């Protein structure tokens, strides 16, 4: 194969990848509104992206890839509905002619993708189904990718998504939120889903996956921003946005040239995104000034504000961080919060004190890689190399992120 054609292939591949990141959710959302069926929307979108690879290679990338994809997906959807109608389903046949009617009133939310978020995050669906649907319909992840992200079998994940879509259709979960008063009640569930999506991007799972999936973090931030414009006075929405921005700000310094995660104390703080930090700090200040008791996301954002205010790791106000974790423990007494608090305590009172706390969490966190990674680090700092090595081994075994595995392996191999 000659070079020019390879270059064309590369160019088309890049264009399709970019279009997938930028346009998937919009194509699915547009088709969902038009056909009133998530299955039709999703499959037609997938077919359109597959067709793009072929057509764009032959004819070049169109000037408006999103428009091309939406039009193609709509054609595929109409074909599909017609095919099914021919099999005798009169209702489907009616839909073919119905879709040119003006769209149904859409309720309180203008952005189509956001309406799709509220459908995928409907409280009548199980939490795990909401996350899976959001990642599939909004994030455009394949079922295999989502299965890997949540460590379940692909067939099980496929069934979970199919069941959820089936319920949306059969129980008639609407593709809209009816009124602005309904929004605050729904938003808590949406925020937890978006936080899970962000985390999956920030610490992506899978040995063959990039350690950071910016497509997911960017998608989570974008959708959280949209929700904030709808609910400007909702403290937790502002808190979650601040938390995401302050975490995302550190991304440029978080992965080394060799694909290894760089821990907070070793990061080049000059590479942090100052604009995102300023925006995040502004949101945190705004919440503090409100005088309203903060929720979980606001406290986590405040912790991140302390980290991003320090010129270097030693300059960090650890007593402030521990005080914030104390506040968090009161509203969320989970072992994971206790673990993170102990890591901060190590900086304030030394690794021995932190180890005593951490060892008490072992029963409940034995399957959690971050528990063993934190323990390995503390053991290393107290000079207990053999135990540290064992803890690193266990952390490496459990870690699902390629950058983290590389980091942990190096730290283990540095032990004397």
């Amino acid at each position, binding site marked *: 194969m000659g070079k020019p054609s390879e270059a064309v292939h590369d160019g088309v591949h890049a264009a399709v990848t970019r279009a997938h990141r930028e346009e998937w959710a919009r194509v699915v959302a547009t088709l969902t509104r038009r056909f009133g069926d998530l299955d039709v929307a999703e499959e037609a979108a997938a077919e359109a992206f597959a067709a793009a690879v072929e057509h764009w290679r032959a004819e070049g990338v169109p000037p408006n890839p999103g428009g091309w994809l939406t039009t193609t997906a709509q054609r595929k959807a109409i074909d599909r509905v017609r095919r099914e109608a021919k099999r005798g389903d009169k209702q489907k046949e009616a839909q073919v002619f119905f879709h040119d009617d003006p769209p149904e009133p859409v309720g309180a939310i203008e952005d189509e993708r956001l309406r799709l978020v509220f459908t995928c995050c409907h409280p009548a669906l199980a939490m795990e189904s909401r996350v899976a649907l959001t990642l599939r319909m909004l994030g455009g992840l394949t079922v295999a990718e989502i299965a890997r992200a949540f460590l379940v079998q692909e067939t099980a994940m496929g069934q979970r998504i199919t069941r959820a879509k089936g319920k949306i259709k*059969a129980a008639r979960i*609407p593709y809209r939120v009816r009124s602005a008063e309904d929004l605050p009640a729904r938003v808590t569930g949406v925020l937890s889903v978006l936080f899970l999506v962000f985390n999956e991007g920030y610490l992506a799972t899978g040995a063959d996956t990039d350690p950071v999936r910016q497509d997911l973090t960017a998608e989570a931030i974008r959708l959280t921003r949209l929700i904030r414009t709808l609910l400007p006075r909702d403290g937790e929405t502002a808190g979650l946005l601040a938390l995401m921005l302050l975490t995302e700000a550190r991304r440029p310094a978080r992965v080394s040239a060799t694909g290894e995660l760089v821990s907070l104390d070793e990061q080049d703080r000059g590479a942090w995104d100052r604009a995102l930090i300023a925006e995040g700090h502004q949101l945190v200040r705004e919440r503090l000034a409100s005088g309203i008791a903060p929720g979980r996301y606001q406290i986590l954002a405040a912790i991140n504000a302390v980290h991003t205010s320090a010129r270097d790791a030693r300059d960090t106000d650890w007593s402030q961080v521990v005080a914030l974790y104390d506040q968090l423990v009161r509203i969320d007494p989970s072992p994971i919060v206790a673990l993170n608090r102990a890591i901060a305590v190590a900086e304030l009172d030394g690794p021995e004190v932190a180890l005593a706390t951490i060892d008490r969490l072992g029963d409940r966190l034995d399957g959690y890689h971050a528990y063993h990674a934190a323990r390995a680090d503390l053991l290393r700092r107290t000079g207990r190399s053999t135990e540290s090595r064992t803890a690193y081994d266990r952390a490496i075994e459990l870690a699902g992120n390629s950058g983290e595995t590389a980091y942990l392996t190096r730290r283990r191999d540095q032990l004397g």
Partner: protein
Amino acid sequence: MQYLVSVLCEGPVTATEEEEAAIDVFNDKLIADGHWVFAGGLGEPVNATVIDHRGGGEPIFTDGPYVESKEFLVGFWVIEAADLDVALKLAAEGSRACNRRVEVRPFL
């Protein structure tokens, strides 16, 4: 679109006076807003009889409900609602009125 709102119960089947009154208010509202299709209360499960006449022959009658459980169906509403959000809102009001858990299921 129609939904079955099943009323689940653990204790005595008869509603208290306050519950009866609240149910009446809720029913009137369902009727006024065009959601009413049908509703009814059911007798105790011990008064149920299960019949099996699959495959013909002599039908088999069994005393008692088809499934033994602490909770049982004590009544139901069939409501007309545009979508699940409307149905859930009504079901929540119904649960409050009759002071019992309810289950919402769409008709096919």
